């Protein structure tokens, strides 16, 4: 077979597509959208699982089992990244309970945070690791930039020793973007986590372009404004044209808006419901809006 320029380009494009959209068996649900971590090329499903509030259920055995069911449904749907923080009450131990119950799924991509006075960072990360029951975390992020200078030093040293795989920082609800940007420019971060959705779009101005420029993966937190956005939209009719991008619910509408940003790697909606976790992961399949559709979506929500 003679390989022409055209056939080479076609084959290369096909290989690239295979990386992004894995093949699925006929009749099987479509595989979720995958995005690459720029610093390593590792592919991750574009919808993860947040645990803020939803997994903080204490010692309640019924609710711990419900959380384990959510984790099980998340992995069944093809999800990988679970994100938590020592600030989230009992969420870490509830994740650990769910993972134990599921036989420690290999697909897990564990994303944690350090959130304490600078000197206590290593002890807190170790405590978090025990709660999860994992040999090491894939990613540890500095939560809301608390003690970031010392923590980043610790995290980069841990990464160099192979005790974690990736380093990141987080912010939420648009706080401290100036400092966030400075740190992104000065340090070789693997991940940044920030708030972004159809109404909170400040990150589009500087942080998302900078993440793309600096080769940093982006985790989007509070995609539904902690449920307030989906609640607000609950009584509103989904526009007919939402079907053009395969959005069958407001949650999918919002997630598809977020994921259509090429610099977004993973969005991490939180939920207590198995049907919602499936719906969320499904949002990362099928078509995504283009620039014109994105503008239409944002305008529609703004005008409601």
């Amino acid at each position: 077979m003679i390989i022409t320029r055209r056939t080479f380009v076609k084959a290369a494009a096909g290989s690239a597509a295979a990386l992004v959209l894995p093949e699925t068996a006929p009749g099987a649900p479509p595989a979720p959208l995958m995005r690459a971590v720029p610093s390593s090329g590792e592919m991750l499903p574009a919808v993860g699982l947040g645990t803020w509030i939803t997994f903080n259920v204490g010692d309640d055995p019924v609710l711990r089992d419900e959380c384990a069911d959510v984790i099980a449904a998340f992995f069944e749907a093809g999800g990988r990244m679970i994100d938590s923080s020592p600030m989230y009450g009992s969420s870490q131990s509830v994740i650990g309970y769910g993972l134990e119950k599921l036989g420690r799924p290999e697909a897990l991509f564990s994303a944690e945070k350090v959130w304490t006075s600078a000197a206590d960072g290593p002890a807190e990360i170790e405590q978090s690791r025990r709660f999860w029951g994992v040999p090491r975390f894939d990613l540890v992020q500095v939560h809301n930039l608390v003690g970031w200078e010392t923590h980043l030093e610790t995290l980069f040293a841990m990464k160099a020793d192979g005790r974690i795989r990736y380093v990141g920082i987080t912010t939420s609800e648009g706080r401290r973007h100036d400092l966030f940007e400075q740190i992104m420019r000065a340090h070789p971060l693997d991940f940044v986590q920030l708030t972004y959705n159809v109404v909170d779009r400040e990150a589009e101005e500087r942080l998302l372009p900078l993440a793309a420029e600096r080769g940093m993966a982006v985790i989007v937190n509070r995609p539904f404004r902690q449920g307030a956005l989906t609640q607000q939209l609950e009584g509103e009719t989904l526009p007919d044209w939402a079907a053009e991008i395969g959005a069958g619910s407001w949650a999918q509408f919002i997630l598809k808006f977020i994921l259509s940003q090429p610099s977004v790697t993973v969005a991490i909606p939180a939920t207590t419901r198995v049907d919602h976790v499936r719906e969320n992961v499904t949002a990362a399949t099928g078509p995504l809006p283009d620039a014109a559709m994105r503008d239409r979506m944002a305008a529609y929500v703004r005008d409601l």
Partner: protein
Amino acid sequence: MSEWWTYRLEDFLLFSPRVYWRMFELHNAAFWPLQLLTLAAGLAMMLLVARRPRDHGLWIALVLAALFAFVGWSFLWNRYAAINWAIAYVAPAFGLQALLLAIGGAAHGRLTFDRRDMAGRLGLLIMAVGLVVYPLVPPLFARPWASAEVFGIAPDPTAIAALGVLLTASGGLIPLLFPIPLLWLLLSGLTLHTMGDPQAWLPLLAAGTTIAALALRRIAR
């Protein structure tokens, strides 16, 4: 905390209303039928305030001290702190309240529950709310009976009944015995308010009435 002005009360709420109220259901189930004993202790406390037999001050103070210590340890420290890390810093305050009550009661003649002025009478009403009304409210807020907050088991009715009984008291340590239950009710009311729970007004109203009663007493002097 930087940019503190950008934070709302909602940003500090770490759990859902469902988790919060199920916590009381689990706690009640874990200690049943101790609720009967703590309620009986509360009613006995009311009787002691009404009859004022010899050493009534000592017994009331010791009962309240034991219940504050128990609620602080069993509910705040062992249960609530699991979903709200800030409560780990609050639970010792209940221990301190128990200590203050024990010291106040054990010191002979330091606490007597003999005041029947307007504030004292309001105190009896507040005490009745904590003891009798509080466990009866769940159906009003569409919650199961199992989530009832009972005096001596849950912190809100314990703090409310304590404030009520303290309004009838006189003695050297009295001013030190009000702040912890009042601050607790403020914290609890704000938590419920942030959760969007209509029951929020109950602890806030109890605290407000106590403060108003104390102010009335001061004005009347």
